[in-house]
């Protein structure tokens, strides 16, 4: 069966295929534990044997193989074992999703036929699809007044709309439903249908499982996951909220499912970090490796000097602020994962063990597949979704090695990766200079070079590192300064040889910039785009200045919607009064619960008194506040006009 969905039931799992076929398997897997000295815990072991039965077994981790026990009991029992052993017992295979464990144990996976290669570049993804929508604004409205089904609007009373929806679902029998803000509307639709006794079979069984809403810390900021009602037997994707869907489409959701053994209902709702974790778990189960429940193993002890050396990030070559002609940006493709695979890095090998490291061997096929899809998508856009999903998983795989709760993470591996990446970039710089190139800027896995024999530099660097690169050519590029006058990392803009502008790090690229300011700055870039070389930029200074004056005077008639600032909320309480706090309060008063990690929009009504309104309530905006935003956007770009433009090989200087 090509498995579309899986739901845990008492004592087993029900698997669903396309079209509604289903099959139940009985499955009650044990968890495992080891004890350093079982003799010290005889009483506990006897008690467990009596109540649940204990099966002695070999527990294989990525480090070693040990004698342990298998026991079929609840999580609560596992907690008691931990406590009663004074936290010396090590528990394995406890927090795995049963369907994943079952499938991986048999070498099967979801969204694939038995025996299929999970890493094939193409796979059968024919699914009966349907689209549902609710026209009312989500998060503020608790009423459904207008819906859409496959683009066709349906109105009427709620019972009429629900009945029409229910009939359509029964007629079309979809395998996959796309529904913007599904995770917000579903509880309302499902409970209304129940009350009205309408048989709404979004879930084939009428049962839904819950993914709870939560806020969590990820990559240095708070992120919020909405709660969700997950149907059984059909895949329901919240097309607005699903990161995987938005970035990688249905193909990405399905590929994530094939790789992790988790149904697409889940992979559509998980972040790349959770996906890479699930993938590593799947691979471990496949190889008979026990998945640890906790992180017990700390790093090695070392002198403070060694820690200082190791606790660093990627290599950076600060640019000298200026505008430069004929520059090539060379990017290493998937540098960090390539290092993991190329250097056989894994928790058990990083201190110098031989043999194939678990992490390296698990990431190798992902990297291999990505390199294929990267090439394929240039010819055929249908590979873009798969490529995007793989890109995200690879990007996350590095950070995950340093994540404190990562099952197969290791700070030593994390440090080895960054150490190697610094060496690679330094060696690449040396190679570039040997080829007569000038290195203008470098950051972690990218170098900007000008002059010399660039093709030779690229060839030799790829050969020396074994990592593929990609190049982009600029007619001219401007590296902007930081507040202290030295070159900013990753803040630049320039015109590529194909005519397009590439812009990074400035207001127009920051998520919280209101549309009005963004289009102002983008207007500047449209003007600058006409310049064919650095020397021609100065000619545009006057036009840019005019654009700024127009933008400022246009503020008073700007549409309120264009002045909305969108920010991800980092916390819901603030010690000092501030605009964001004021916006959160306004949301609260409108009945919208704001959690850390959620994105909210607001319009600043009074910058001095720190008053902000939610977009649907805002009627006026503080011109002085937004003028400052315009000024900042303008000043970000202005430095390029005050630089002396020297001949291209020298670049700019202040």
């Amino acid at each position: 069966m090509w498995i579309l969905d899986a739901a845990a039931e008492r004592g087993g799992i029900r698997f669903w295929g396309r079209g509604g076929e289903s099959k139940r398997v009985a499955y009650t897997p044990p968890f495992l534990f080891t004890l350093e000295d079982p003799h010290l815990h005889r009483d506990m072991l006897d008690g467990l044997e009596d109540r649940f039965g204990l099966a002695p077994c070999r527990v294989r981790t990525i480090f070693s193989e040990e004698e342990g026990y298998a026991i079929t009991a609840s999580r609560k029992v596992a907690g008691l074992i931990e406590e009663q052993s004074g936290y010396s017992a090590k528990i394995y295979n406890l927090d795995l999703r049963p369907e994943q464990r079952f499938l991986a144990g048999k070498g099967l996976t979801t969204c694939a036929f038995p025996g299929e290669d999970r890493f094939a570049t193409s796979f059968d993804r024919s699914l009966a699809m349907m689209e549902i929508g609710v026209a009312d604004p989500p998060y503020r409205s608790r009423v459904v007044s207008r819906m859409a089904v496959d683009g066709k609007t349906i109105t009427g009373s709620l019972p009429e709309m629900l009945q029409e929806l229910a009939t359509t679902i029964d007629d079309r029998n979809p395998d996959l439903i796309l529904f913007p803000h599904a995770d917000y509307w579903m509880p309302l639709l499902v409970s209304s249908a129940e009350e009205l006794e309408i048989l709404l079979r979004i879930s084939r069984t009428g049962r839904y499982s819950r993914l709870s809403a939560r806020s969590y810390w990820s990559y240095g900021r708070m992120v919020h996951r909405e709660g969700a009602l997950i149907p059984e037997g059909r895949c329901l994707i919240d097309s607005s909220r699903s990161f995987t869907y938005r970035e990688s489409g249905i193909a990405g959701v399905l590929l994530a499912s094939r790789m992790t053994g988790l149904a697409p209902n889940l992979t559509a709702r998980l972040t790349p970090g959770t996906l890479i974790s699930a993938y590593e778990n799947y691979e471990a189960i496949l190889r008979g490796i026990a998945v640890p429940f906790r992180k017990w193993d700390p790093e090695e002890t070392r002198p403070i000097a060694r820690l200082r050396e190791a606790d660093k990030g990627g290599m950076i070559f600060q640019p000298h602020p200026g505008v430069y002609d004929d520059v090539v940006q060379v990017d290493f493709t998937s540098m960090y994962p390539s290092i993991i695979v190329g250097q056989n890095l894994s928790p058990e090998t990083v201190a110098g063990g031989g043999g194939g490291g678990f992490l390296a061997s698990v990431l190798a096929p992902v990297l291999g597949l990505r390199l294929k899809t990267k090439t394929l998508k240039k010819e055929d856009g249908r590979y873009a979704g798969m490529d995007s999903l793989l890109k995200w998983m690879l990007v996350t795989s590095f950070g995950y090695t340093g994540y404190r709760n990562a099952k197969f993470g290791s700070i030593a591996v994390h440090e080895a990766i960054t150490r190697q990446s610094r060496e690679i970039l330094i060696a690449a710089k040396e190679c570039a200079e040997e080829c007569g190139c000038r290195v203008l800027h470098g950051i972690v896995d990218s170098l900007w070079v000008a002059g010399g024999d660039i093709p030779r530099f690229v060839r030799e660097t790829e050969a020396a590192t074994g990592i593929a690169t990609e190049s982009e050519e600029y007619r001219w590029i401007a590296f902007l300064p930081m507040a202290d006058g030295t070159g900013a990392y990753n803040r630049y803009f320039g015109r590529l040889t194909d005519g397009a502008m590439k812009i990074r790090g400035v207001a127009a690229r920051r998520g919280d910039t209101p549309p009005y300011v963004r289009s102002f700055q983008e207007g500047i870039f449209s003007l600058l785009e006409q310049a064919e070389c650095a020397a021609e930029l100065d000619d545009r200074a006057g036009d840019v200045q005019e654009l700024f004056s127009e933008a400022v005077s246009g503020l008073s008639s700007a549409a309120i919607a264009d002045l909305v600032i969108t920010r991800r909320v980092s916390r819901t309480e603030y010690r000092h009064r501030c605009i964001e706090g004021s916006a959160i309060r306004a949301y609260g008063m409108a009945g919208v619960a704001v959690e850390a990690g959620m994105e909210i929009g607001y319009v600043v009504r009074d910058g001095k008194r720190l008053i902000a309104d939610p977009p649907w309530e805002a009627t006026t905006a503080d011109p002085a506040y937004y003028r400052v935003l315009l000024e900042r956007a303008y000043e970000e770009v202005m430095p390029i006009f005050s630089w002396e433009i020297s001949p291209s090989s020298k670049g700019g200087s202040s």
Partner: protein
Amino acid sequence: MGRSIGSVRQGVNEIARRWERAGRALRKEDQTYAARLAAMARAHTGEGFYAFDDPLEAAVFSVFIELLKEHDVDP
């Protein structure tokens, strides 16, 4: 940027700020040199952390490099 140890760049920035502040205590004719010194300390912070763990060493190295460059231009 590390997980536990503040980055060398942060350290150099702190040192540069201190040197700027120290300039205020100098005689007027000497003050511009303090500002220049702070800028020289910052000039190579981006790359400094590759070999250095001590921000003071990185700052001093950066200053010396800049001094040698100036020396070469005006012999």
